């Protein structure tokens, strides 16, 4: 989420590799970069803020202790972390439902319906946001205008003063990057051209 956009062509990121190798500094870097995304995922899904913080903590602890299982060739670090976080969120939701259910058994209340957004959707969103932040400035800017402001390519060209052909090519390339990233790191299971990340 925090990849500095002023760096148009980010160098190959070695945090993931150092993380896997057990470099504790890389753990902190990963946390500084992706902790807010994991916390966002948890707070989006869990009503209880303390639970969300607990899940965030547990996610990073589990990731660190299980770093041997992280395969950077199969997906990004944030995608892997969000996969862990998503699973922990779901565990937590199930456990809460279970506790509630046991407590309420006497009254035979039905299991509380799962509310809130779909965790897969939140993960996908965060993955796309991360990739968007990594895009070269121009591509990112054009896509933000298209996504957030719902501008046509023509309008984007007018607003930015960038030639229409360039706008189109930025958007086309940006979309290709987002889609590729989503296919690798996105949460939803099921057939996708690029297969699934190994993190889940």
């Amino acid at each position, binding site marked *: 989420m925090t990849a500095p956009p002023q760096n148009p062509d980010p160098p190959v990121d070695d945090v993931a590799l150092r993380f896997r190798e057990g470099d504790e500094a890389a753990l902190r870097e990963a946390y500084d970069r992706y902790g807010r995304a994991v916390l*966002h995922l948890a707070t989006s899904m869990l009503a209880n803020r303390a639970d969300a913080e607990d899940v965030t*903590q547990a996610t990073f*602890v*589990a990731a660190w202790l299980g770093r041997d299982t992280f395969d950077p060739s199969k997906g990004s670090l944030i995608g892997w972390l969000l996969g862990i976080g998503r699973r922990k969120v779901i565990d937590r939701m199930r456990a809460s439902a279970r506790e509630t259910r046991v407590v309420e058994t006497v009254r035979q209340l039905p299991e509380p319906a799962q509310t809130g957004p779909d965790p897969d959707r939140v993960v996908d*969103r965060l993955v796309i946001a991360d990739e968007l932040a990594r895009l070269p400035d121009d591509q990112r800017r054009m896509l933000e205008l298209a996504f957030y402001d719902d501008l046509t390519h023509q309008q984007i060209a007018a607003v930015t003063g960038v030639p229409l052909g360039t706008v189109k090519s930025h958007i086309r390339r940006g979309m290709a990057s987002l889609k590729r990233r989503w296919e690798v790191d996105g949460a939803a299971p099921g057939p996708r051209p690029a297969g699934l990340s190994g993190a889940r």
Partner: protein
Amino acid sequence: MQHLDHDRLVYLALGESEAANGESTHLDTCEHCRAELTALQQVAGLGAETQGLADLPDPPEHIWQGIAAEISAAQALPSLTGAPRQQTVDQPLSGTSAERQVSGPTPERPINEPTERSVSEPTAERSVSGTTAGPEVPGAGSHWSEGRSSGRSRARRRGWSRWAATAVTAAAAAAVGVVGTVSVLRPDDPPPDPTPAVVAQAPLAAYGSTPPTATGDARVLDGGQLHLHVANLPSVPGYYEVWLINPTTMQMFSVGTLGGGSDALLPLPPNVDLSAYSVVDVSAEQYDNKPAHSGDSLLRGTLTG
């Protein structure tokens, strides 16, 4: 007609233009192009939802403190969470040493100063009190060992050294492989041979409205298996499921299900803390696709070493 040009698909996905007649016809018949368009539309939809996600607030510092403390503890301690309680020292100890717990008192917070260089504020108090004892489900859904997440359980957690975690994960994997073939023993089968040491056990008694003739025994075997022996369980429309419950918090997790026989051997997660999850519970479950405990407990007992 050839596949649609990729640029066209992007523009269509963004609503930049409408599909022309020929394009619509092609999309109706071409799975490939349709899937591509759908994917691009999904991405565009997600993209529109990313507004604000670039400016998420930083997590509070105590989360990092908790991570650092938990990891320090996990890596500094030579013993295992999966180990049973101390009373087992009189058991014959054989086999690999990786799964032994270290005897003697375990300091609650052995690492006062997390090793991470960036831990700046001493907010350990917050990091303990601020983490509610969460219903962590040991081993569920994750195939690596992990520390426990709650402050309360952290206080009594016995951590993992890295080598031990690796060794035990491997051992547990091996155990699962074996158990997979013998998980439900024939009623009259002898226990597995050679008989592993029993490191904790619990007599199981009828719970709630279950007829008192229902009974059983649970034994935690050295090597991380739970041996269940049950008798006179009431017949149920569904199946029997075995749980470990933390009686303090009522958190629980499923260990597995019982087959038709009177004995079952179930693998325990390698990192389970039996001093916390000390209650063995056999429940009646319906085939209702709900993973949670039904609330219908048939047998219960408390593990003692």
